[in-house]
């Protein structure tokens, strides 16, 4: 089971309480996690990744296991701790402003 933590705005938008739990088969990657997330919550399409290019939106970042994974290739395997559900995959809105 994959655990995904979304920022407040997106949890409110998708009417999600707490973490999202996704059951995935095969290799666990950013792409497979986000595909499954958007499959369950279609309203999130376009909010984390571009609708067409599937590129990460500029102010959305991905973290797990205290690592910034935002610039990792979308098909790179996520850490084992994410794949096992021991650690969540974090979608974070970049902090900006003063």
């Amino acid at each position, binding site marked *: 089971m994959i655990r995904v933590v979304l*920022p407040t705005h997106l949890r409110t938008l998708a009417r999600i309480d707490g973490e999202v739990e996704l059951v995935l088969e095969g290799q666990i990657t950013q792409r497979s996690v986000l595909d*499954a997330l*958007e499959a*369950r*919550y*279609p*309203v999130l*399409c376009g909010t984390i990744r571009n609708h067409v290019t599937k590129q990460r939106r500029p102010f*959305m970042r991905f973290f797990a296991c205290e690592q910034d994974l935002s610039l990792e290739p979308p098909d790179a395997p996520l850490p084992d701790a994410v794949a096992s559900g021991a650690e969540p995959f974090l979608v974070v809105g970049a902090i900006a402003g003063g």
Partner: protein
Amino acid sequence: MVDGEHLGKLKREEGMSGIRVLVGTRKGAFVLTSDGKREQWEVSGPHFAGWEVYHMKGSPADANRLYASQTSGWAGQVIQRSNDGGKTWEAPGGGVTTSPEGFPRGESNKFVYDTTPETGKPLTTHQFYDGTQHPWEFKRVWHLEPSLSDPDTVYAGVEDAALFRSSDGGKSWQELPGLRGHGTGPKWQPGAGGMCLHTIILNASDPERIFIAISAAGAFRTDDAGKTWKPINLGLKSQYIPDPAAEVGHCVHHLAMHRSRPSVLFMQKHWDVMRSNDAGESWQEVSGNLPTDFGFVIDVHAHEPDTIYVVPIKSDVEHYPPEAKLRVYRSRSGGNEWEALTKGLPQRNCYVNVLRDAMSVDSLDPCGVYFGTTGGQVYASADAGDNWAPIVRDLPAVLSVEVQTLP
């Protein structure tokens, strides 16, 4: 057949029972409601708290069907829809799918420019701030204009400038690519707020005719329901562009039209208040005795087609009222002769702005006029502008105000 004006009179005689003011702000949406007296108001919200709501508007064909443009620099564009007058909202095509197999077709937020060969491969670059050509990039929906007859059909004006239409209640959107593709696209350029299509005017007497306006490209008209478009900017003069009388490139801030007289248009340009008597074929300046003719909003009285309203702003650098006095100016002659309306409005130390979509009128008699400010006030006048009072004073900066007159 009962035409719009006659229907309006009938409803006035019967006594309309309520007003709903839809307010989009920098940090959410608010719905303000009152009975026909327009004295006591209830405020609900914020809806979509923390998100920018550029615009909300109700369907003329179903007063309880509302559309809202919810947007964020982080998470992009979301279209919201209400079927109960704003009490509850849903993202069309959203919800939760129970099966993760297969990719969803939740298309509610999807605005993709049409570049297919079948529609003529619309031009895909426009002029950027530095004069170079830049590809069109979707950013947000500035304005939603529901169909006059079908609650499920709605138009969206977007940044970068283009016109989209949904015929399934906001679930899926298709561009009307003839606008971007008609030939002048490479000369369009962003204004300070971005390159946005911010005004859409539909026409009850001729459904094939639509007016739109873009900052900074100008005004455009279609006479075939959006297949083909023509610039309608003859007579505009803008000193800040290389050719002040160019066919396109003008920073039009807003257009207004009275439904009973669809060939007469009023325009608040960056500078200059303009009028056209021939559906935009030509324009004449009607700024007259205004203290400054810079501004954003312009609107028309519900029952007097020659009574128009603007809120002069000092300049394109100083976005606040001249002399720090918030004044609505009214012309009862379709322009040129203006009177300041000040009763109930702050006349000292006022430094707010009134943005382009932040004024609207109701169709009661006397006509109600409403506008919102970047300081978070929404002012209302129940007597066509003679007297004003704030409905609310401390909302986030107001981006848009629309009014529904409820049966």
